[in-house]
């Protein structure tokens, strides 16, 4: 590939667009990227059509960055298509790595989400109970929309993925390191997580730590935390103990606790279960009733522990037992 430029694609599935912006946040390095790579497909930034991708020969693309989770038929179709057309497939960002914020949809299902979005929210006026349909006949012909699924999946639960780049969004400095590795051909073995550290965020965190004991949990928006002291010691749930470092502790520096977007540590199967253990062991009581009272001050524990990773977790979704 010495004389030939790399052929790169970037696509968004169920995502917010923040990952596409993060790729631009490498600033003038984007010009260096253009030196070594041709961007063949990037719907967020330039005008491309799906049929252009469909017309490519297999493995035409050297590398695809796929950001976003898989939650509808279009996300799935393009993921499969790009996998077929790409030599390497990278899950870019928390949503494609482990479900991300759209993955919180796995606490619900399509029916309840539609009812909330199209009927029950205060600002909705929908007396005829109109819901989105996948097909609709108009005089000009048939209009179609992708089908939304009940369960959000990660990219790797849909097609085989070669590399994982965690983060919501990935840290631009880490993105640049990954791009350099791709350009020089010095890539780690397939299946690796790249652009992140193998240590926990707690390990790198500069805040003062002395002794950890919970008498009460506090919610971040109701207190003014001391910017020098460990969040957990101030009663605020911080996922740094169960989360990979590599993000450059941007949240910690902005006096916000870690929400866990870099995902589980190597060899930890379930990030939420690990965080649960770390927190519960430090509750300052040996009386079961008092433990329950202290836990009452921690609303929505599953939402804290699986904020970015519910689809990747061992149970994947809320189980609909009596549905």
């Amino acid at each position: 590939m010495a004389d030939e430029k790399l052929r790169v694609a970037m696509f968004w599935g169920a995502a917010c667009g923040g990952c596409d912006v993060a790729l631009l946040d490498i600033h003038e390095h984007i010009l260096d990227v253009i030196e070594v790579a041709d961007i063949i497909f990037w719907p967020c930034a330039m005008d491309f059509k799906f049929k252009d991708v469909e017309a490519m020969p297999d493995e035409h693309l050297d590398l695809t960055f796929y950001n976003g989770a898989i939650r509808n038929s279009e996300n799935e179709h393009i993921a499969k298509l790009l996998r077929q057309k790409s030599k390497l497939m990278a899950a870019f960002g928390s949503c494609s790595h482990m479900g991300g914020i759209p993955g919180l949809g796995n606490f619900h299902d399509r029916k309840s989400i539609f009812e909330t979005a199209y009927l029950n929210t205060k600002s909705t006026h929908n007396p005829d109970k109109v819901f989105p349909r996948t097909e609709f006949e108009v005089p000009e012909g048939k209009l179609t929309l992708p089908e939304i699924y009940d369960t959000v999946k990660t990219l790797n639960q849909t097609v085989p993925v070669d590399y994982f780049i965690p983060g919501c969004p990935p840290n631009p400095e880490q993105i640049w390191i990954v791009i350099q590795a791709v350009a020089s051909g010095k890539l780690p073995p397939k299946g690796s997580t790249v652009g992140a550290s193998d240590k926990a965020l707690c390990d790198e965190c500069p805040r003062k730590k002395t002794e950890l004991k919970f008498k009460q949990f506090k919610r971040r928006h109701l207190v003014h935390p001391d910017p020098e002291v460990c969040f957990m010691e101030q009663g605020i749930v911080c996922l740094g103990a169960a989360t990979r470092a590599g993000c450059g502790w941007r949240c910690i520096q902005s006096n916000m606790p870690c929400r866990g977007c870099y995902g589980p540590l190597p060899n930890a199967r379930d990030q939420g279960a690990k965080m649960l253990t770390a927190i519960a062991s430090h509750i300052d009581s040996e009386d079961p009733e008092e433990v329950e009272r202290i836990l009452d001050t921690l609303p929505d524990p599953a939402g804290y522990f699986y904020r970015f990773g519910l689809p990747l977790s061992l149970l994947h979704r809320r189980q609909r037992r009596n549905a």
Partner: protein
Amino acid sequence: MSFEPKIVGFLCNWCSYTGADLAGTSRMKYLPNVRVVRIMCSGRLDPTFVMKAFSQGADAVLVAGCHPGDCHYQNGNMKTLRRIPLLRRTLAQLGIEPERLRLEWVSASEGERYQSVVNEFVEQVRKLGPLNLELDPSVERAAG
């Protein structure tokens, strides 16, 4: 055919496993639904073990350790006492009835207590019915 619950039991080496052993050597009869895994201390129980048991077909999980104050490692069981309530709350949010996870204290001399705990729990889970998780087999490959 009646429903036979599959229960995974995590028993601490020093008290509850020995208690279960006593029930056996004393030839006490109890229901055979609990598959026992011996762990060194109930405090060794990573919540991942419980999630994994559920995700791989257990209908319920029994955790048993030394009585509070009797831990071989001084306070390992105290960590369990704090973890199980939080794990129950988390499981409830994930749609698994908290009653499917039970914590009991069984000492090495309490063979009879182990017998009654198991019999009672099996009947309770039988009433709850099978867990029948909706897990897509393609997703386990994807741990990343």
